């Protein structure tokens, strides 16, 4: 009798969280459809889904018929961008959750710790060294990007092992590092191609423009694998949340676990950032919104943040394309608008005993 009551209570407890995740997924599907509507050729809302499903089922159209062009526009021109937005949003939010838990630091995310800027600088260095975006040299770009994103990761590891820094100091270091990387990035890009400051700007702000299918599989595969790994390790992440000493006393090999986590995150971040440039704050905004809604058990927070991050990036990207249509804003500017105030809020809220300082 008692056990049944307990089970009921637990089920209710879970149901609330699962509903949240499902709702977020529904928003993603909806936003994906809407995002496919923007640009030129007018296509109905429901038609978009039909076209996508038909395409997946392998329907062939005769060349140059209206159906052919509908299919071409949706699946070749608009869908890659949507897929990239979903993958990038999901992966960056997952990294955000993992970082916040790992460092027990509410402000940590790929952007504020400087890993995104490192990855971005790596990609720019590789391009400047002459790797192109298509063909086998994509691996070169990704590889450099991965290596450079390890620099901030290494500093985080060293700082947490050798000196005890407060979380705030760590974030400050990360922010400064991203300024530094951004400046070096500009230096390289400007020297390379004459006056390409706008290219430098797009890299540092992030934009989902100009993606094609053949590039996409690397971020998709790496991010999916990374997210799966994070979900798998969510129990350990929960333990890490209580701080290094507590986690050690619970029998977790903290230092090695942190190294593994940072490696996985560097891979995920590099695979995305080398295509989009730095997309800031997704990893900060999505997890905090999720935690406000469903608490902080990482088993649920990770999938929920994935869905919410994807939805957020899709919506902001669609907004960025609509605000000054037919031109588009870099999506990073809009993210910064949401992220700045939230950053401030987190700083002020987590002040005090047991806080970050």
């Amino acid at each position, binding site marked *: 009798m008692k056990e049944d009551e307990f089970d009921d209570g637990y089920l209710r407890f879970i149901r609330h969280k699962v509903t949240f995740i499902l709702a977020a997924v529904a928003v993603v599907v909806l936003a994906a459809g809407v995002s496919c509507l923007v640009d030129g050729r007018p296509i109905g809302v429901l038609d978009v889904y039909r076209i996508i499903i038909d395409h997946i089922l392998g329907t062939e159209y005769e060349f140059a018929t209206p159906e052919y062009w509908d299919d071409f526009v949706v699946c070749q021109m608009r869908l890659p961008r949507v897929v990239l937005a979903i993958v990038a949003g999901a992966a960056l939010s997952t990294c955000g959750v993992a970082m916040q838990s790992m460092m027990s630091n509410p402000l940590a995310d790929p952007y504020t710790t400087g890993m995104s800027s490192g990855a971005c600088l790596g990609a720019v260095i590789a391009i400047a060294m002459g790797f192109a975006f298509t063909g086998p040299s994509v691996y070169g770009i990704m590889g450099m990007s991965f290596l450079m994103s390890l620099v901030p990761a290494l500093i985080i590891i060293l700082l947490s092992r050798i000196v005890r820094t*407060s979380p705030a100091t760590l*974030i*400050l270091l990360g922010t400064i*590092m991203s300024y*530094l990387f951004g400046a*070096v990035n*500009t*230096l390289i890009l400007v020297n390379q191609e004459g006056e390409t400051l706008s290219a430098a700007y797009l890299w540092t702000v992030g934009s989902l423009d100009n993606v094609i299918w053949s590039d996409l599989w690397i971020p998709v595969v790496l991010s999916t694998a990374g997210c799966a790994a994070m979900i798998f390790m969510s129990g350990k992440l929960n333990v890490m949340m209580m701080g290094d000493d507590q986690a050690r006393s619970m029998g977790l090999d903290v230092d090695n676990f942190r190294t593994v986590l940072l490696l996985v995150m560097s891979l995920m971040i590099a695979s995305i950032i080398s295509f989009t440039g730095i997309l800031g704050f997704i990893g900060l905004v999505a997890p905090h919104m999720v935690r406000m809604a469903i608490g902080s058990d990482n088993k649920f927070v990770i999938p929920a943040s994935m869905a919410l991050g994807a939805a957020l990036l899709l919506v902001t990207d669609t907004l960025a394309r609509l605000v000054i249509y037919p031109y588009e804003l870099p999506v990073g500017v809009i993210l*910064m608008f949401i992220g700045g105030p939230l950053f401030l809020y987190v700083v002020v809220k987590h002040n005090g005993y047991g806080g970050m300082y």
Partner: protein
Amino acid sequence: MRRAAFILALAVAVAALLVVSPCLGAYPVSVEEVFGILWSHLLGSPPGDRADFVVWDVRLTSSIMAVVAGFALGVCGSAMQAVMRNPLADPYTMGVSSGASLGAIMAIVLGFSIIPGLSGNAMTVCNAFLLSLIPMTVILALSALKRMTDTMMLLCGIGVMYFFSAASSLLMLLADPTQMSAVYSWNLGNIGTGYWENLPTMAIPTAACTAALLLAASRIDILTSGDQLSHTVGVDPFKVRILSSLTVSVMVAAVVSFTGTIGFIGLVSPHIARAFVGSRQSFLMPASGLVGALLLLAANDAARMIGSLPVGVITTIVGCPLFFILLIRYRRSQWV
């Protein structure tokens, strides 16, 4: 005596670099030519050829603007570090610069004036001044309500800065979406080609505010030793803090309106100057200002020699590592 000598030496160094600066860049001009051109302008008969244009209208204006901006930022940094009792404070990290730059962009891009009836440079500077007050107010209010650590103040400043720089990017991109490079160099800080007619708007507030801060130097010194102590010697810390913050904002507004947000000059200069002249504000402020002028002038020359680079890139590359060292070094020690 040693301090006065150091300040004098700095002034001489700035003057020397100012004369050499017009020689540096893609179009070659020798030092003698520069002297010739300067002399002919002093006599009132400019030659009007290409070299004259490059030296007098492009490079010299840019260099003088760099000197004024660097001086202002250096003085502001020194005053802010003392007033906020935070070794990492400067107009950039506290978000003051980004507020000012948003105000300036409102005026330049939208032609919108917060105080009605102004136009031209006055409108730009007034807008910049009013918006630059917001970050300082936020940080001072928060630190009055809650106990804030040094790093936390900085993080608040960074949060405000993200928001403001996003807002100014948005304004500029809404006006002209093809102008991304302009947005970027504004956010990074760019002196580029100066204009003679802008110089007075920059230089006069800078001079006036520096004078005001120098007059208040002894009170700011007292503030460094803590609020309670300053009460006991009869200085109202709140009043000094507000007044000097206002003065700093005016100065930052005057500079940022024409250069965009240049980072780290205000942070680094006081620390360099402090190593030579100690931390008495009446010496530290002018010394820090001159160090700032020297640094920004050198950075501006470097940016011009590399070609079409915003000067903020150089100051960031130099300033970040120094910030790192300061952050690690001051982590525990009590800063006075």
